């Protein structure tokens, strides 16, 4: 068991760092700039992008973490008393209130 971990761990690490060791690095000013099909950049400063993307990403993160807590709970759901159900419902209730608040506030409108 241990041997498998050692061999494949070593192989994984080697593959990751072999590139860093073998690749010759010759930095030059153009290489550091982003690649835009080779044509000159249209904006000198950083390209702005609309705020609604950040909002959606943040809300997704929030509710994704919420779902993660369900997994361990669901595993041991069979052996637990009814009280665990009430605890999880309370936890769920708090987040549903947040969800409705975000909905009302119009965080999900896209246009």
């Amino acid at each position: 068991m241990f041997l498998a971990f050692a061999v494949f761990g070593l192989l994984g690490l080697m593959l990751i760092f072999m590139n860093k060791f073998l690749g010759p690095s010759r930095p030059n000013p153009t290489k550091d700039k982003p690649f835009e099909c080779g044509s000159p950049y249209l904006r000198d400063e950083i390209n702005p992008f609309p705020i609604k993307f950040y909002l959606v990403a943040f809300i997704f993160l929030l509710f994704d973490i919420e779902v993660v807590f369900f997994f361990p709970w669901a595993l041991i759901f069979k052996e637990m008393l009814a009280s665990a159900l009430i605890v999880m419902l309370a936890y769920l209730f708090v987040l549903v209130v947040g969800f409705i608040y975000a909905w009302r506030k119009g965080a999900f409108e896209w246009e």
Partner: protein
Amino acid sequence: MLGGKALSSGSEKRSGLSEMKKKQGPPAQFITTQFNSILGWARKYSLFQYPFITACCGMEYMSAACAHFDLDRFGAGWTRFSPRQADMLLVVGTVTQKLAPVLRTVYEQMTDPKWVVAFGTCTVSGGIYDNYAVVQGIDLVIPVDVYIPGCPPRPETVLDGLLKLQEKIQHQEQEWRWKKRKP
């Protein structure tokens, strides 16, 4: 073999290896040359190409890269459309004066080690377009390793050019990160 032969420029075929042999002592020399040829072998058979296609040779490149005359048999079939992941810049078709800055930017943004293959007579010497609009040969813009003649070159000539490049990579003095580079 049909058509003209591909010609690799400045092919220091044997010179790269022989210099190295003289420098170190016997045991160290054996290790570095072995390591060098292993590295050359590895790089030779996994060339990721960046097809910088502009004109009619692109049609011939399509045939050369597709099922009939397969580039993939020599390990160079995988086309990467970003210079960060490509080893070989395949300049295909006429490069005009307006496109020259784009070509130089793409070349400089490619990661090392990198090679350039000039595909078709227009890239080698401006071809039949000797006028105000065309760069007479892309070696005015970027250093070129292998020149493939033909307008457009037959797919067999393209494969021959690829083999010449692989031979050059194999016998080249390889580079790696902490190697003491020549002054």
